[in-house]
């Protein structure tokens, strides 16, 4: 089974973010980056499928130079090789534009399965996998927690809202977007990190993929969210703040 996992490098969850001077995105200098969480689950699912059925796991990611680090991390966890789509202008591309790059890089690989996380932690559009499926003319399923290979293709467990699930049967090749929590994530071993250095990462530029198209939606401005409530901050030492909160719970909220 040849599996391609599309992964994204996103600002680290705990990184302090500041709006940039142009007010169009965040200040990227000195920003810490990490692998998008649901993409980590997609990679884990791919590695487990490979362990069960054999084959190859290829990771693909688009972005500037720094993305190479996230690709190496995926290789250290066990992916066999990587494809780095070099693109400095990811921010100017909409979801369709990014999906076009990924689809163009994936297509010549002719994979049996394409996996990606259901949503990125930065833009949160939650669309890339579905658009890639459409562009490649492949069937897809989203919010997948478990993948089973069958004689006819795949049986997957899909999460629905409010604690409901369903199974879906679909033929391969197919695209799945993976929900977090279906597996336990592995860490890279020392041996894995050592081996990752020897693994192939093929670089391809956005221009070489010739998958451009005009953006049809644009992020024009970012701002701090408006507060929906005026929060009363209880300050002081932990003990003082706790005492102040108990007063509120007793006399204002009346739950004590």
């Amino acid at each position, binding site marked *: 089974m040849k599996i391609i996992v599309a992964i994204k490098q996103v600002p680290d969850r705990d990184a302090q*973010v500041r709006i940039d001077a142009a007010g169009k995105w*965040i200040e990227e200098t000195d920003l810490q980056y990490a692998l998008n969480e649901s993409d980590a689950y997609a990679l884990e699912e791919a590695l487990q499928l490979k362990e069960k059925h054999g084959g190859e796991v290829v990771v693909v990611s688009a972005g500037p130079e720094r993305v190479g680090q996230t690709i190496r991390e995926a290789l250290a966890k066990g992916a066999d090789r990587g494809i780095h789509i070099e693109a400095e202008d990811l921010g100017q591309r909409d*979801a*369709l534009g990014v*999906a076009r790059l990924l689809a163009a890089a994936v297509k010549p690989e002719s994979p049996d399965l394409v996996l990606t996380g259901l949503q990125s*932690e930065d833009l*949160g*559009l*939650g*669309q890339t996998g*579905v*658009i890639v*499926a*459409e562009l490649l003319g492949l069937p897809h399923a*989203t*919010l997948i927690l478990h993948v089973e290979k069958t004689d006819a293709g795949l049986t997957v467990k899909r999460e*629905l*809202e*409010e*604690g*409901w*699930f*369903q199974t*879906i*049967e*679909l033929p391969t090749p197919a695209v799945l977007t993976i*929900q977090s*929590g279906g597996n*336990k994530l592995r860490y890279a071993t020392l041996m894995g990190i050592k081996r990752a250095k020897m693994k192939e990462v093929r670089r391809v530029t956005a221009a070489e993929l010739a998958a451009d198209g*005009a953006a*049809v*939606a*644009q*992020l*024009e*401005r*970012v*701002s*701090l*969210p*408006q*507060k*929906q*409530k005026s*929060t*009363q*901050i*209880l*300050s002081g030492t*932990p*003990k003082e*703040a*706790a005492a102040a*909160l*108990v007063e*509120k*719970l007793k006399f204002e*909220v009346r*739950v*004590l």
Partner: protein
Amino acid sequence: MSGVLVVIEDRAGKISRISWEAVAAGQKLATALGLSLSAALIGSQTESLAAETSTKFSGKVIRVEHPLLAHYTADGFTIALHQLIQSESPAYVVFPHTYQVRDYAPALAARLNEVLISDVVAIAEEPAFTRQLLQGRLSGNYRHTGSGPCLVSVQAGAFRADAAAAGSAEVTVFTPTIDAAQIRTKPSEPFRGSSQTVDLGSAQLIVSVGRGIKEAENIPLVQDLATALGAELAASRPICDNGWLPMERQVGSSGQSVAPKLYLAVGISGAIQHLVGMKASQCVVAINKDPDAPIFEIADYGIVGDLFEVVPALTEAIKAAKG
């Protein structure tokens, strides 16, 4: 191109609340831009849903009907709506941001050479669409620049369902051309996960724990607080993903929706998927080390600090207050 088309979804044979919210958003766009409003229902037997819609809706109701649409499939819905959009040429298509819409609307948009502007929380004139970025830490304003229809999905709770204008609508039927071979996936009937033994929905007091707790070994810290308060213990998704608490204690879009008198969020940053499950709480208290965490946007009271110091102090103070 003209008009605003709202795609309505049903839940167990009834039109879902978020669909009415999408109608309200569509109404807002139609009024602001002077466009007509219509609604689409998709299925194999949409007669009663159309009747329900037409009592609370003043535009045209379109029943998109085909035997192959009896059960949702991404292929079936994409084909049907693609044909409807080509026939009606709406300028805007508004969806409720549900798991189902997330499954097919991006493909539908791509087929139209467009993108879905997803999970929109506000619509300004011009129009500009506001959506949350970086898990709610920033807001982003998006503008549609394509030449085709503008596709938008609206977040649960962002628009008031009762803002949908009442009226009696004209009902028409649209029959798409679908071949069984075009539907490549075979879905099963939905089923419940585990037997839900914890009913957080009726709890009056909830202490909820998030990623800030760092390790499974630290969970007893918040369990002690919940016990002292007489509250149910709940969690955000990552805690349940890690198996530190059972899935049935998860609050959020994929877990339970709660509306207690007190929701005490410990180490929860407040990603959108969590907030939709708890923002109906009467009083929200947040304990978090990050003063910019989105949870503070909806909290009534906040303590900015290290939960490993604040929570034990709070547990002691509550025990003392209760005597």
